[in-house]
């Protein structure tokens, strides 16, 4: 059984390795290569909805990796220029970090709005609970009904259950 599991683990390790795309690109220096690596990790593949360019083996992701490589090495684009280049052609979709403008206000402010809404709701309920506490008249009536038993004894009785 253990042997079989070991085999399965080994095979899985092999498939994972086979699925990650490997391109052979030349870089004049290590710094450019590091920039290239961080850029392709940053963009979303337009075809596959939730994989970045680095992790996708879709043909379009490969084309875009080639493009990013060309922009970084041959055309000496800055990171911001590469971002602008891809955004101009493929739209906000390729950016995992959405830009801040009227169309995305809901996205940026939404969570804050929900937090405020939640706080208001909690505050409202707390205030309501205070108001629901017994008035002194009701307290007296309760005492009368309960007779000798004090509220404390009632509490004990309840917690025994």
């Amino acid at each position, binding site marked *: 059984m253990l042997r079989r599991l070991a085999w399965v683990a080994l095979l899985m390790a092999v498939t994972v390795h086979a699925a990650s795309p490997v391109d052979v690109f030349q870089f004049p220096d290590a710094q450019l290569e590091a920039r290239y690596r961080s850029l392709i990790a940053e963009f979303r593949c*337009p*075809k596959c*909805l939730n994989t970045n360019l680095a992790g996708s083996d879709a*043909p*379009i992701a490969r*084309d*875009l990796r*080639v*493009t990013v490589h060309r922009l970084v090495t041959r055309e000496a684009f800055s990171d911001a220029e590469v971002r602008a280049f891809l*955004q*101009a*052609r*493929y*739209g*906000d*979709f390729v950016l995992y970090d959405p830009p801040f403008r009227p169309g995305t206000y809901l996205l940026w402010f939404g969570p804050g709005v929900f937090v405020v809404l939640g706080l208001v709701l909690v505050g409202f309920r707390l205030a309501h609970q205070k108001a629901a506490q017994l008035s002194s008249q009701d307290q007296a009536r309760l005492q009368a009904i309960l007779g000798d038993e004090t509220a404390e004894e009632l509490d004990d009785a309840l917690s025994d259950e």
Partner: protein
Amino acid sequence: MNRAGLFVPLGVFALILVVGFAGFQLTDPHQLPSALIGKPFPEFSSTLLTPEGVSVDRSRLVGSPVLVNVWATWCPTCKAEHDELMRIRATTSLRIVGVNYKDDPQQALRWLQEFGDPYEFNLLDLDGTLGVELGVYGAPESFLLDAEGIIVYKRVGEINQRIWQQELVPRLRELEVLGDA
């Protein structure tokens, strides 16, 4: 607690249901909004499928409205829309220009001989460079350009009767390629 308050969770549930339903109905996650609508068709330099080796640039696309169709022989949906393109070519005066995308030119020529050629000419995009300029992420894609070469509409996926009637005809009337019905 107020009796009406008991219905709040139900209301919240209904709201989630409605928002979720609308969200999934209204947007197809595979249809990305094009960043190029309202922008000029990018500058390019490309060679033609036929006559072979002749180079063309953006100036060949301006002057009158044109439908630029990105296609390839490896793309099954391109075959599905081919008849509709042939029909448009035969029955209207709309120019159709092809971008033969990451394809084998010999196979492309055979395809056009076999199934008919709706294109005024075909640009060769062997390595997908023009495709990247156009934000293409899956063939077929089509761009409608006005006479100045501004992209007024983009379709990802096949052009069919429904897309023709609902999306293209109104725009072509605006561009005065089609007369009022």
